[in-house]
C-alpha cells in the first residue's frame, strides 16, 4: 500500500507570533518555519505503518511556496520515500485555502493512487480543520478524523477518534482519509544517516497550473489582531476570599 501524507510549512510553534503593522496577517518574514506539528504526527504514523509492513511507500506532498521544499526534506529525513512539491504561491504570506489544497490533493491522489491519505487534523497557522474533510468529499472516500489510535485490518482502517466526551472507534473502508490528532504518536527525530539520505531522495516539483486548479483566495482577511493582553492578577489572602472572588466574577 502507498500512503500519501500532505505536509504544510507553517510558522514554528515556538515562535512568538507578531501581527503585521497593517493588520493584514501575521509577519512571516525572517521567522522560523517548520512542518505543521499535526503533519509531523501523520508522517510518523506513515513510517510506523511502513515499519510494521503495512505500507510499502510513503509519498509526502506540500502545496505552497517554493520554500516548502525544506518541509518536504524534513519529512524525507524522518523516513518518507519521495516528495512532491506543488508551487502555488510566490509570497510566503499567501495561504492557499483548504478547498484549493483539497482540489490539488485530489489530483495528486488520482496520479499516485494511494491506499491511504494520512493528514494532520489542521494546520496550526489558521486552524481551518477542513482540508481532509474536503478531500474526502471530492474523492468520495471514507474519512476518519481526529485519530488518536489507528490500525490496519485487511482493507479497512480501524481508527479511534477523540470526540467530545470520550473516544469513538470506527472502521472505515480503504482507500480512506485519516486526519490525525495530537496523541496518536510522538514523532521521531531525523537521524543523522537519514538527514544525509534525504538529500538524495526524489523530489518532484510541480505547479498548481499543472493540475489546472485555481488557487485564487475566496476569503478576504478583514483584520488580524493580537489577542487581548492578560489583565494583571490579584493576590488573595485565603481560600474563602478566593471562592468569594470567583463567585463575584460568576466563575463558580
Amino acid at each position: 500500500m502507498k500512503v500519501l501524507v500532505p505536509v504544510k510549512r507553517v510558522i514554528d510553534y515556538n515562535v512568538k507570533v507578531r501581527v503585521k503593522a497593517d493588520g493584514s496577517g501575521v509577519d512571516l518574514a525572517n521567522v522560523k518555519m517548520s512542518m505543521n506539528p499535526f503533519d509531523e504526527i501523520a508522517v510518523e504514523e506513515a513510517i510506523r505503518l511502513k515499519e510494521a509492513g503495512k505500507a510499502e511507500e510513503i509519498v509526502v506532498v506540500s502545496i505552497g511556496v517554493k520554500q516548502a521544499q525544506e518541509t518536504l526534506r524534513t519529512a524525507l529525513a524522518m523516513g518518507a520515500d519521495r516528495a512532491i512539491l506543488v508551487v502555488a504561491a510566490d509570497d510566503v504570506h499567501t495561504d492557499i485555502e483548504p478547498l484549493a489544497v483539497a482540489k490539488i490533493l485530489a489530483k495528486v491522489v488520482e496520479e499516485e493512487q494511494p491506499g491511504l491519505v494520512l493528514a494532520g487534523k489542521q494546520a496550526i497557522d489558521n486552524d481551518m480543520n477542513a482540508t481532509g474533510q474536503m478531500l474526502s468529499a471530492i474523492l468520495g472516500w471514507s474519512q476518519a478524523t481526529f485519530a488518536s489510535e489507528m490500525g490496519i485490518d485487511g482493507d479497512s482502517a480501524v481508527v479511534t477518534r477523540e470526540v467530545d466526551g470520550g473516544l469513538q472507534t470506527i472502521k472505515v473502508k480503504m482507500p480512506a482519509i485519516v486526519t490525525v490528532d495530537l496523541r496518536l504518536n510522538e514523532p521521531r527525530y531525523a537521524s543523522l544517516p537519514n538527514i544525509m539520505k534525504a538529500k538524495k531522495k526524489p523530489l518532484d516539483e510541480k505547479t498548481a497550473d499543472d493540475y489546472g486548479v485555481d488557487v485564487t483566495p475566496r476569503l478576504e482577511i478583514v483584520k488580524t489582531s493580537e489577542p487581548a493582553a492578560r489583565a494583571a492578577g490579584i493576590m488573595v489572602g485565603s481560600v474563602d476570599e478566593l471562592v468569594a472572588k470567583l463567585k463575584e466574577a460568576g466563575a463558580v
Partner: protein
Amino acid sequence: MDFEISHEQRMLVDTVRGFIKDELAPLEQQVEDSGVLDDATAHAIFEKSSSLGLYGMNIPEQFGGGGLSCLDQMMCEEQFGHTTDILIRRAFGNVYEVLLSCTGAQVDRWLTPAVKGDRVCSIAFTEPGAGSDAAGIKTRAVRKGDKWVLNGMKHYISDGAFSDFFVVTAVTDPEKGHRGISMFLVDKGTPGFSLGRDQQMMGIRGTSHLDLHFDDVELTDANLLGTEGEGLKLALSVLGRVRLAQVSARAVGKSTKILGLTLDYARDRVQFGQPIGDFQMVQQMLADSAMEINATRTALWQTANKIDRGLDPRADISALKVQGGELLDRVVDRAVQIFGGMGFSKDLPIERYYRDARIYRIFDGASEVHRSVVAKTLLKGATDLYDPWSN
C-alpha cells in the same frame, strides 16, 4: 562566501538540540546531586543516541562515524554545550581523532570499537609535573627486546573510571626532548596498570578524574600509536580540532544557553516596580554577552571552515581556546550577577554553570599558554591572523 545555515545543518541541529532537551537535560540535576551517572542510564542514553547516528559524528564514515565536516561538527558541539560533560560523553562519545592513526590490527582492536561505542577511550597526557607543558612528562617507555616497558603516572584523566583504554604519552628517547615522546594504547586490566583515586573537582560532576599508575606495564609495538618519537607531533596535529570542539564550541553553546535563561530572568524579575531588564546597567551586561557570543561563534565557524579547506590553523584555534573559555567566564559571571541571590543559590542551576565554567580557562592549555601561542605566531609575521588581506 555563504553565511546561510543550510537546511541539512538546521535539521541536524534540531535533532541534536531536541535530543539534549528531551533525553539529557532531565538527568543533569540527578547527576549533580549524586555525583555519578549510573551505568544503566548511561547505557540507555547511548542506545538512543547511537540509533540516531549521533555517536562519533566527528569520525569519517569509512570508519563507521558520522562523517561530519568540521563546521557541521562545531554546530553540533555548540549544542552539546547545552548539557554536561558526562552526558555528552555517554550520548555522543569522545572519540578522539588521534585514534584515526590506528593501523593494521589496531583498527579492529581500538578504533572501530571506539567509534561504535563498544569501548570508551580517555586521553592520558597530563601528569603532576606536566599540564600545559605536554613535553614535560616523566612517564617512560623503554624498549626491551620486542617489548616496551611502561613506568610512571598520569593524573586528572577525565572519565578514567569508565574508559576501557587510554591513549598514553611516554618518553621513549629522553635525549630528543619533544621528539622523543611516543603514544601508546593501553587497555585497562593490563598487568601493572592500576587506577588511583578519583580527584574531586569544583565542577563537571559525574565525570571522574583519575590517577593512573604504570608499574612495569609490558606493551608491544601493537600498542604503539603512530611512529616512535612522533607522539607529541601527532597529538598536536589532531588535538586542535578536539580543542575547538570541546572547549570553544561548547563554551559558545553554554554561553548561549545561559544568556537565554538570563534574558528570561531580566524580563520577569521586578524590582523597584519594573523588570530589572529595564535598568541600563543590566542591559549593558545582556548586550555585551550577546555581542561577544556572536563574535566568538563567527570566529569559530571561520576557523572550522579553514580546517575543512585542509588548512592547519593552529594559532586561530589557540585564539579560540582563549576566546571561548573567557567568553563563558564573562557570560556566566554576568548571569550570576543578574540572578543575584538566586544565582548564588543551589535552587537554580546558575551556580552549577558558574562552577562548571571555570575550568574552560584552564584545561586543554591555559589561556596564558594559548595567548602566548597567538602572540608568538603574530611576532613571527603571521599577519593573516588579524588581517586576511595581507597574504
